[in-house]
């Protein structure tokens, strides 16, 4: 049994030094909405918990170039209150907003949602679809990693000892671009996604899709970027044939498990249905931009 130490450093360097120097298991505490549950359930017994919410750059949303940089510890409530972000990235905002209750929204962070490593994390497919890039800071400096490269398996990430995700960069958006996220849960709120789908796309003046990214959650050991699903949309006006091809590609990419939240069969079918519905929302939004 380990005595847990709590630290709340005020700089990124100090946080990295604490994590890098930790003896035994060390955990980053951002919103804590997963960490505290795991602590209480005795799933983890960390020797060190590093609270990163007192590090200014982790708690800010700022314009960067023509895009945004969102601190990894920014809460869902803060992101959704940001006057501009939600307009440009409505899919990312709505995905983040779906994580847990209003109370969870007051705390849950994108960095935590990603680094918890759950295949069913709601914000992750939206981040992947958005092409968001994580800025990872560690003892050897900083590196940029596409979000889809962070999670390597359930509860596992590609982060090395001492590294933390500090922020996410969102690229600038061409005209007629938008995104959307839908998930399926048995209730209307408070459940973990049975399937989640993020779609980001760009249209040309004629309404033909010139770029698309489609990501799935909860249907494989990690959230998936599904190239074939994007291919089904690019070059089309998202007509019925394209939507059917998208649904087929989404279902084909699934490699889910049977568990208390859904069956393989169900998840595979729902992935297709949701991909179509999500793309439709993204399409309608893109047409208005």
């Amino acid at each position, binding site marked *: 049994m380990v*005595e*847990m*130490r*709590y630290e*709340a450093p005020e700089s990124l360097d100090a946080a990295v030094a604490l994590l890098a120097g930790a003896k035994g298991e060390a955990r980053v*505490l951002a*919103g*804590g*909405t997963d960490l*505290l*549950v795991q*602590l*209480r*359930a005795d799933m983890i017994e960390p020797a060190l*918990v590093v*609270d990163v*919410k007192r590090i200014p750059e982790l708690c800010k949303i700022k314009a960067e170039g023509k895009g945004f940089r969102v601190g990894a510890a920014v*809460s869902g*409530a803060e992101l959704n209150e940001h006057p501009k972000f939600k307009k440009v990235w409505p899919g990312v905002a709505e995905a983040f907003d779906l994580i*847990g*209750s*209003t*109370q*969870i929204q*007051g*705390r849950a962070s994108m960095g935590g949602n990603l680094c918890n490593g759950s295949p069913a994390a709601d914000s992750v497919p939206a981040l992947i679809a958005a092409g968001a890039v994580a800025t990872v800071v560690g003892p050897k400096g900083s590196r940029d990693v596409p979000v889809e490269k962070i999670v390597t398996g359930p509860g596992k990430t590609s982060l090395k000892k001492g590294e933390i995700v500090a922020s996410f960069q969102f690229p600038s958006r061409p005209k007629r671009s938008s995104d959307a996220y839908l998930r399926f849960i048995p209730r*209307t*709120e*408070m459940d973990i996604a049975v399937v989640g789908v993020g779609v980001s796309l760009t249209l040309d003046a004629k309404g033909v899709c010139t770029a698309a990214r489609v990501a799935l959650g909860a249907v494989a050991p990690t959230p998936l970027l599904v190239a074939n699903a994007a291919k089904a949309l690019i070059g089309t006006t998202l007509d019925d044939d394209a939507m059917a091809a998208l649904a087929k590609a989404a279902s084909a990419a699934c490699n889910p498990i049977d568990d208390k939240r859904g069956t393989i069969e169900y998840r595979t079918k729902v992935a297709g249905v949701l991909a179509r519905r999500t793309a439709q929302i993204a399409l309608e939004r893109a047409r208005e931009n």
Partner: protein
Amino acid sequence: MSKTHVSTTINGDPVEFLCEPEQTLLDVLRDELYLTGSKEGCASGDCGACSVMLDGRLVCSCLVLGPELNGRSVETIEGMAKGDQLHPLQQKFLEHAALQCGICTPGFLVAAKALLEKNPDPTETEVRYWLAGNLCRCTGYDKIIRAVLDTASEMRGS
């Protein structure tokens, strides 16, 4: 287990306490400060019975570590009535019989107050989704939703 000294503000008053690093804000409120109005229904953020405001944000106090409180400010159900004056939500919950057993009531009130401060004119759907993280097993939610909508209407009128 060694304890951490924490200075914080609760319901407007400066408070100091000692806690183990693993104790949650809810544990601190209930077991160290004897503010038992916030309830533990799940300890996993799924029922909302421990809802409090932390630096002006609605959170589950079971998902906040005690030591995080240093320099921060907490509002609990105990701070909702001012003197002998109930908050309009408290009054409406009574009038609408929006509680049966009452265990979820403090959490609902804290959460509903946060809603009305942000959105004074919510629709029924908005109220239902805002309060989806507060479980009630007795009422079927009907009278709770009516009480919140009625309070909003009354507060807008005044």
